[in-house]
């Protein structure tokens, strides 16, 4: 699976992709591969805010519930409703239709300091 250009990844396996100051947040292909069959995704409410490192979502696989940490701080402006009905989309298209939330962030510049480019992330986790 190829990751889109420009994504930044946290060691805890979340990615961000910026488009016009809006940040799409999701899980990396490595993360969804490790989780296996995803059966339920619990997303935050639109309008809720998180600081970097805070749990903002939970992903349930057959085996276990896994917490998802905010890779940057900010406010959730959109959530991926599709995942409620079709959680497997996260397995199939982590960088496409399987995104989790879109966030606005005032602290992105500071918070993304320790995020890795995809190639470096891959090296780190494999």
């Amino acid at each position, binding site marked *: 699976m190829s990751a889109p250009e420009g994504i930044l990844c946290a060691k805890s396996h979340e990615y961000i992709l910026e488009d016009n100051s809006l940040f799409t947040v999701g899980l990396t292909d490595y993360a969804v591969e490790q989780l*296996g069959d995803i059966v339920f995704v619990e997303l935050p409410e639109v309008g809720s805010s998180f600081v970097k490192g805070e749990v903002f979502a939970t992903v349930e696989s*057959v085996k276990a519930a896994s917490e998802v940490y905010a890779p940057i701080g900010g406010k959730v402006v959109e959530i991926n409703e599709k995942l409620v009905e079709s959680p497997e989309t996260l397995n199939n298209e982590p960088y496409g239709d399987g995104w989790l939330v879109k966030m606005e962030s005032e602290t992105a510049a500071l918070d993304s300091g320790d995020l890795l480019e995809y190639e470096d992330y891959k090296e780190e986790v494999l």
Partner: protein
Amino acid sequence: MCKKTLLYSEQEKLGAKMVAFAGWEMPVSYTNIIDEHNCVRNNVGVFDVSHMGEVFISGTDALAFLQKLVPQDISRLTALKAVYCQLTNSTGGLVDDLIIYKLEDSKYFLIVNASRLEDDLKWLYSNKLSFDVEIDNQSDNYSMLAVQGPKSVDLMEKLGLERGVQPEFFTIKKVTLAGMNLFVARTGYTGEDGFEIVIKNEDVVDVWKLLLEKGKEYGIKPIGLGARDTLRLEAALHLYGNDLNETTTPIEAGLGWSVAKNKLEDYNGKSVIMKQIKNGVEKKLVGFKMLSKIPARHDYEIYYNNEKVGWVTSGAPSPTLGENIGLAYVKTSCNINIGTIVQVMIRNKFYDAEIVKRPFVKKKNKV
């Protein structure tokens, strides 16, 4: 440092994802849990369960010794028959659950949980006292494979063990297959028909390869611990450490069927267990299904009428039912029965669950 079974490199070749379990590095899945689960329900799967403990008990007092250890009546066991039972402690709690196979008079074979092997051995030795028995832990010399699923009978036949000579349900046989001496038992942990094969270490790789090769026409897959857990949960088979421990008795755990009511001999915890049979218990194991899409997990709390009444011991999505199922202990004083709606606390919110009958999924072909 985790131990590895002799199939580790074979499993790596098959792309297994490994996890640490009971001190062993074991495959959690090879492809994905749901496919592996369905393969066992519909066809046949092979599990490496070499981590499990194999202990032989022999000697003049073998029967008397085992009678002291378990609530089942082992005197009723005839040669080559097997029985599911538990090692009880003095308060009726469980040291482990296990299967005892009678090989011959004065010789028994115990298959115990990997996570409990060391505690079991300590317990066996501390109960040995003046009994004339030999406790022979052969876990390092034997490997074990489970062949489970409706097509396991066909596969074993293909391997040269014809239907007519296959062991019957809950019996064991010593057989020679492809020149190898094996114990083949008609037991398992999936709720399907199947076999557990106990193999000398030096032969296990050959048997594994043979099963995968000959099983191709039946759609065989290697199955990891992930599907083993969802399969056993659908069949409402207990997992030691989750659903059973030293503070749960067989009666509380819904295992009263495995307690002999008229056994004459005393056994560890007998007075507590007999009292519970007579007077009832304070907590009991129940099955439930979630009424929402969120799976309940081990240790989540159960509420009823805003009161905390219990906790989840096992919970997972059921691939067969497409629902989230689980086992939980609840206080018996609350009158929680089949059909009662309780609440499971998940991440500080309440979600409804309905108490349902166990097992959640019934075997299609009765053996």
